[in-house]
């Protein structure tokens, strides 16, 4: 244990440069040299990464490595945190999302987010899903809204379970159902990218399997960025994997390559379970 910590701290700055191919053809989101600071403390250290269309990209790494912070930069959820500062470029379809003139409201409609803990609104199931379309004015009639709600719940694989009790509170569902409700709520706004911050960490294995199956289906229409602590989940779900370590993006690559043949020693140590 002692020797391992020593080993890690001896890794110099040169060894922390990202290994692997960070760019993709025709990316949805293009991040260039992104730094994030919480006050004086640097949480993310110059990350450059592309997020492609219709792919699931998994972000793995030990706790506190900055993967969630990076995820939250992609739809500016960090704005609400006092003292959080982001530098570098993050472009969504060529548009700088940190541009001062850019409005975060439409950005978040384009880049939805699902959180670690299911957090449905304390309202009915219907209202949970209908809220987004309603505030964005996506539908003009009640029947259109009904349709959006039904479609979103179907896509989230929840429709059959809740269609008879749409007026019951969303907080009364089980944990896995709540998380799928949150996904339905995100889908209802019609985003292009869905960010998922450890979406299954509060769920039991059966609910996890359902959500994973759902994520796999959603890939057809959306770009999905998923942060996870479970390497099996990353291996099952994602096409590409990014490994973060203490604020650095260490290695990016095709998932099967990362898990079978990692090129960086830190990545190898992590996925073989020597730390993390």
């Amino acid at each position: 244990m002692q020797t391992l910590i020593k080993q890690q701290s001896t890794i110099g700055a040169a060894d922390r440069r990202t290994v692997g191919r960070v760019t993709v053809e025709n990316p949805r989101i293009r991040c260039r040299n992104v730094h994030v600071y919480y006050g004086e403390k640097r949480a993310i250290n110059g990350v450059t990464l592309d997020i492609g269309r219709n792919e699931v990209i998994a972000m793995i790494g030990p706790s506190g490595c900055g993967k969630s912070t990076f995820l939250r930069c992609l739809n500016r959820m960090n704005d609400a945190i006092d003292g959080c500062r982001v530098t570098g470029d993050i472009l969504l379809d060529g548009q700088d999302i940190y541009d001062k003139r850019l409005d975060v409201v439409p950005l978040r409609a384009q880049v939805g987010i699902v959180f670690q803990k299911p957090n449905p609104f304390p309202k009915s199931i219907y209202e949970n899903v209908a809220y987004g379309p309603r505030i964005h004015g996506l539908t003009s009639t009640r029947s259109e809204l009904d349709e959006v709600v039904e479609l979103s719940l179907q896509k989230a694989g929840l429709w059959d379970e809740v269609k008879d009790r749409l007026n019951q509170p969303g907080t009364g569902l089980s944990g896995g159902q709540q998380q799928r409700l949150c996904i339905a709520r995100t889908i209802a706004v019609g985003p292009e990218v869905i960010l998922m911050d450890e979406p299954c960490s509060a769920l039991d294995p059966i609910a996890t399997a359902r959500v994973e199956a759902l994520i796999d289906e959603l890939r057809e229409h959306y770009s999905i960025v998923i942060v996870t602590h479970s390497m099996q989940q990353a291996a099952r779900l994602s096409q590409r994997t990014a490994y973060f370590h203490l604020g650095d993006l260490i290695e990016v690559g095709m998932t099967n390559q990362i898990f079978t043949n990692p090129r960086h020693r830190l990545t190898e140590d992590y996925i073989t379970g020597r730390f993390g």
Partner: protein
Amino acid sequence: MNNRTDIRPGSTMERVNANLARRYAKERRFRRMGMGAIIISLLFLTLLFSSIISNGYSAFWQTSIQLEIHFKAETLDPDGSRDPGLLSAADYSSLVKGALRGIFPEVKKRKERRKLYALVSSGAAFRLRKMVMSNPDLIGSTARIWLPADDDVDMLVKGYIDRDKPEAERRMKDFQIAWLERLQREGRIEKRFNTTFFTAGDSREPELAGIYGAVMGSVFTLLITLALSFPIGVAAAIYLEEFAPVNRFTDFIEVNINNLAAVPSIVFGLLGLAVFINFFGLPRSVPLVGGLVLTLMTLPTIIITSRAALKSVPPSIREAALGIGASRMQTVFHHVLPQALPGMLTGAIIGMAQALGETAPLLMIGMVAFIVDIPAGMMDPATALPVQIYLWADSPERAFVERTSAAIMVLLTFLMAMNAVAVILRKRFEKRW
């Protein structure tokens, strides 16, 4: 023992067991102290309530004397015109006096007669006038009517005047007591429910004094306080908690709101006197000014409790709303506020209860005046319940002692009702999720 750091398996159990008894004893001692504290506070509370109730319950009954009143036409309406002006100016007390003379024809001396007349309250004449004014057909008829007795009679009947004391030290002389005993034998004395207490304003005569004026004054004052302090307080809390940037200026404001909550209420009274009455020229003694002063006093409470309620809303709800693209305003008004509302309402009602019981600032703005009329609006001179209690507690008449306690009971009833409403509201709103 010399090897205290030995934590090999099996070596610790002995030491753990040795300490166990002491640990449990400590816990038991703490529990007993807690129970003791609760018992002591309950004891004092019972003491307070029993003293107030035992002093005050008798005020809800008032001794009345039944008299045969002959509404003599020659006294009330000599020319038969039924002119309301004349009717109201007529000498009704002579009717009461006539009736008393009818019962006690043997009392002839002027001095004694005056004592006899004093058995019945001076309010009896007003009651007769009211009866005649509302029904002039009474003129010429005779009726048996229950009229309020004087407060000294009331006290004697209720047993607060000791009959065994030497005559010179007692407010009722022997011959007066003899008259009363005769009236009692004839069934002309009865303790009846004291409606006057709930329907009249203040009076110098205890048997005619009531709390209705003070209650209405308090109601108007609190209406103004609620209408101003709740919206202002909630808006300030929402801005400070959800929108304001965190910097030195907002820190300064926050510290000062907390300071204001600790300012003695009489200082707010002085402020109200200087600002609302002397500078803006608003009238004295009116509920409007009282309400403004109490608004200043309750604002810090409402702001602090509302902020606490907003803070207690889980951040995950905010994130959820922001995450699907709600603006900050929508996040606050659609999701945060509904969750925080029960807490805010509770805070507001507690602030209102505090305002209801507040006396000192009202003294400063003149709501301590002796006001007989029932206030009909925000700009009528008025007093408030706690001030009325203060005024009565200061009065020398024995009958005001029980009325003071009775008024305290009414005030406490209002306070408990308000707290109950706070609890019910919180329960009702919480049930929605």
